[in-house]
């Protein structure tokens, strides 16, 4: 099976609140306030693809759009045992909106060999919009399913996709090629690459495309074209108004806590 996994590089979501800062544009996080890492759901997607390949064979291509630093995410993907990397360089400082990203990815995908399955992460750990996968599918005219945690082949032409739902899960039979967004589960925790594979990954050739290579104007990725435009970004003030329960004995404190909880429980 020929699988494409889209990898997004993001500001490390583990950045402590005290280090988090907004850049001079006022519209996005300061990239200098933390490391850049691969979005966890994208790594879950790659892991799901790798497991499919381990079981059924095939090839895994990884693609990433962003500044040159996205090469790190692609190299890590190779170290995890993806086969071929594609980098689309966009040095426009602002993060493009999901619709613009999907358009660029779709343009690149049309230039590539055909895929049976295209995977994205469920959402990203920075903006968490969760829109790119669905828009990408529409751009490509393909079916889409979100929140997938298990993929398996069904004969030659279809795939079984297991979707996590609010109350459990459900399965879809989807024709190939399909687009799916992957969520985290107990089964797709990203593997840790071996040191040897990390070294090998750094030697692999990387295909780099600029926007011109894809015949996309830089204008198309400028913020005045965005369908979803960030107007304001602010760090909420953390105001602590916690009433710490006091008392002479633990028992007294527990009694007060119980009274407070019971008051809410009775009102429910």
């Amino acid at each position, binding site marked *: 099976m020929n699988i494409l996994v889209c990898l997004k590089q993001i500001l490390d979501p583990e*950045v402590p609140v005290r280090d988090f800062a907004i850049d001079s544009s006022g519209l996005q996080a300061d990239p200098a306030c933390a490391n850049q890492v691969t979005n966890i759901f994208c790594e879950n997607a790659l892991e799901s693809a790798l497991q499919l390949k381990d079981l059924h064979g095939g090839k895994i291509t990884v693609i990433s759009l962003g500044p040159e630093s996205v090469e790190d995410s692609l190299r890590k993907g190779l170290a995890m045992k993806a086969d071929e990397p594609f980098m689309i360089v966009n040095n426009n400082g602002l993060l493009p909106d999901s619709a613009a990203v999907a358009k660029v990815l779709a343009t690149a995908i049309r230039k590539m060999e055909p895929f049976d399955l295209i995977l994205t992460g469920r959402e990203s750990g920075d903006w968490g919009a*969760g829109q790119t996968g669905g828009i990408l599918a529409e751009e490509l005219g393909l079916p889409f399913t*979100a*929140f997938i945690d298990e993929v398996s082949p069904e004969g030659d032409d279809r795939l079984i996709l297991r979707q996590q739902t609010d109350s459990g899960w*459900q399965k879809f039979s989807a024709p190939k090629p399909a687009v799916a967004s992957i969520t985290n589960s107990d089964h797709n925790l990203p593997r840790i690459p071996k040191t040897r594979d990390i070294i090998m990954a750094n030697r692999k050739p990387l295909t780099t495309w600029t926007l011109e290579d894809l015949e996309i104007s830089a204008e198309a990725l400028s913020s005045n074209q965005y369908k979803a435009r960030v*107007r304001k970004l602010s760090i909420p003030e953390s105001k602590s108004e916690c009433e710490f329960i006091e008392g002479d004995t633990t028992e007294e404190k527990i009694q007060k806590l119980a009274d407070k909880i019971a008051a809410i429980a009775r*009102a429910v």
Partner: protein
Amino acid sequence: MSEDTSIIITAVVTAELNTATAGLLGAGQRLAKETGGEHIVLTSGGSDSEFAAKVKEHADHVITFDSEDLANNQPEAWLNTISVVSSQKKPSAILLGNDTLSQEITPRLAHRLGGASSGDAQAVSANGDTILVTRSVYGGKAEAEIELTASPAVVWVRAQSMEPAETQPTSGTIVAGDVDASSDIRNKLIETHAEEAEGERLEDAQIIVSGGRGLGGPEPFEELVALAKVLKAQNAASRAACDLGWVPHSWQVGQTGRKVAPQLYLAVAISGASQHMMGIADSKAIAAINTDPDAPIFKHCQFGLVEDYQNVIGPLKTKLAELL
């Protein structure tokens, strides 16, 4: 956009009266009021259903679609139906809830209609011809105001935490819609499995008792389950506790888990990392039991107890059993 009055469409994909439906209808009703427009609600089932009769108290028009695929929550059937109705009605905004199906079809719908999409909205408002969405980003470390510049704005909202809809002085009309929902369905829904959840979904829970890494292992969760029982509450956990395999991943609340909005979220031995807080930000009240008075969780609490949970949970359960 429509030339005369603006139209707001609210799509209720699960025909059930619950907190999520009430909040979603509230969001649509308020946006219609703000734009001076009409509020049209789309839902499944017959036009004579009890649900439709209830919904019309909060809408100008209810359009019902009697289709098995829609009732079974087949995503592409909903996508087709909302697309067709929207291309006729030309709404300025389409609002959906935060269920899996609504989240899945939001970006696709926007693309089909030439509009703009956003998810996880905590507030939706009108700004002239465009729609503004407020949402929590960067794992809850920042809040963004996002303008959807293309019409229609297709937005899924945090339905449970929205103010419920008000009963309108005049009820709306109900008409049976006529759309071939089942054409062009490519992904066949072949199996549905509901977890044998005791009681309601976490998203609908009124009280949640949650545990974190500080519990040290799976055993103390049994005590939290017992405490939850007394409170008629649901149990949840932080990502750390789920990743360590102490409790199922379906319990996970936070940025990568579920987003909840209970009347009370009781966090036991949870430090309160921003990713966790993102999942509980819509709680009406948060309370914590933690040994560390400087734990970030206390910054978000209405009340808290600095104490080792081991000294608290058992006696607390006994006292609550007496009080309730």
